[in-house]
């Protein structure tokens, strides 16, 4: 059984971004980039399923510029067997990403496709659901537990009110939440081994996918600043301010 994992190159989760002064976007020059944390969890899950003998091959796929190959190497250092790099711009819309991934799904015929629930840069939370719809596969988003067997996958999902369990026929699409697992630390021998694992490079045209733009970014600005607050000295002063100044408690 093959597992396909979609990984995205994003800014490191702990780096502070700045809006460009011309308001066309955020300034990513010279900032630390990494694999989107949710994608890392997806790779880790796929590798664990393989280690348990439930899957035979883990394939990582990314869409982006050549730099995104660094994240494919990361995925292979975590244990993915091989990778596919779809050469395209770094900021494609989710629908285009989903169409490109669908082309890979048709070619590779995986039983399970794992994606992160959300990119931490665009915060879209769309690609997995779109891919499932386009491939007519069942979906389970926000997975906190994945139990794979030969013909189905049972997934616990983090929903607003608590937890929900779904059973999906394979092939299916699952997106990961933070608590699914904790990705392993990448060891040097694995990083070395990953350098020799194959990356297949393809273009959208070779996959027969036409990239269409539906959205334009008009501007990107800083969020409105909050007005400076005050430091109070005691709990009594705090309660007094909340009551008599902010008037938010009785």
């Amino acid at each position: 059984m093959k597992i396909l994992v979609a990984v995205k190159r994003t800014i490191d989760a702990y780096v502070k971004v700045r809006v460009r002064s011309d308001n066309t976007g955020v300034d990513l020059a010279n900032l630390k980039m990494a694999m989107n944390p949710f994608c890392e969890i997806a790779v880790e899950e796929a590798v664990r399923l393989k280690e348990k003998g439930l899957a035979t091959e883990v394939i990582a796929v990314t869409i982006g510029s050549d730099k995104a190959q660094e994240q494919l190497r990361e995925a292979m250092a975590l244990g993915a067997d091989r990778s596919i790099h779809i050469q395209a711009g770094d900021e494609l819309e989710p629908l285009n990403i989903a169409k490109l991934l669908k082309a890979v799904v048709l070619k590779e015929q995986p039983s399970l496709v794992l994606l992160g629930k959300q990119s931490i840069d665009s915060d879209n939370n769309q690609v997995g659901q779109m891919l499932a719809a386009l491939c007519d596969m069942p979906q389970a988003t926000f997975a906190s537990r994945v139990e794979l067997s030969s013909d189905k996958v049972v997934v616990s999902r983090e929903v607003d009110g608590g937890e929900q369990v779904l059973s999906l026929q394979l092939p299916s699409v699952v997106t990961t939440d933070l608590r699914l697992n904790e990705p392993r630390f990448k060891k040097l021998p694995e990083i070395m081994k990953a350098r020799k694992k194959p990356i297949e490079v393809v273009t959208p045209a070779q996959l027969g996918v036409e990239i269409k733009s539906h959205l334009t970014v008009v501007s990107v600005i800083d969020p409105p600043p909050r007005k400076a607050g005050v430091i109070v000295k005691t709990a009594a002063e705090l309660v007094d301010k909340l009551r008599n100044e902010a008037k938010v408690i009785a």
Partner: protein
Amino acid sequence: MKALVIAEHDNQKLKAATRALVTAALQTADQVDVLVAGSACGAVVTAATRIAGVSSVRFADHDSLGHPLAEALAALVLTISAEYEFILAAATTTGKSFLPRVAALLDVAQISEITAVVDRSTFVRPIYAGSALATIRSSDTIKIMTVRTSAFAEATDAAVAAPVAALEFKPLAGKATFVSENLATSSRPDLAAARVVISGGRGLGSAENFRLLDKLADKLGAGIGASRAAVDSGYAPNDMQIGQTGKVVAPDLYIAIGISGAIQHLAGMKDSKVIVAINKDAEAPIFQVADYGLVADLFTALQEMEALL
């Protein structure tokens, strides 16, 4: 110009988020219809007919919609989507799961978590965990968006009820099936609707200590939230998590206790009207967004506040 709003509810009660959706929809379209999909959800349908500004309420009432799967909700919406220029759902785990499917099957984009409507094709949404606000223009003929409902006022009740119409719903041959659900039961106000939210972080130190927030919450009628570190450490269940990857809240009063204020946490609460931070570290970033900061040991501060309220 017609908009379709997908109601948020639990089959018994219409959630307040639906009212915020109607407000957002009325900023795009002249006519707003509400779709209620559920099982034995008559009370929800009735409540929806009373929202001011709603032209009609369409509903599908079917056993299999009691725990609606994304596949089923998307299929239902697609049966009527051609009538609408705008389709809006709340940015909840339900809305986030089914609406991108609708967009993909219509070959249009989805705009996620809008916080403002600029004009009929232009919307504002936060990116990078709220570090920036992007204004996005759509060239699609159908605009599909999830809405951050805390950013829109709740539509009030109308004097006259809107008409209702039943939709036919044929359950799908299920490749996905619902197995079970384990929902938190709490007498506290829903985080999304609470006027006051008290959140605890890793600073609370244990699950037992986390319960110390209960007393203060009781006194203030508050909902209780948590940072991811508190959830990961097992102090609180995951449905309490506030932030980039949890819930987004904007109550009148948000009290952060023993929370450092990582960007991912701020993403879920920094639009609250009044923010209070209690932390023993004067350098904690949470103080940069706090209207009132108290640099103190949280255990002492909690006791003192309780005594004063």
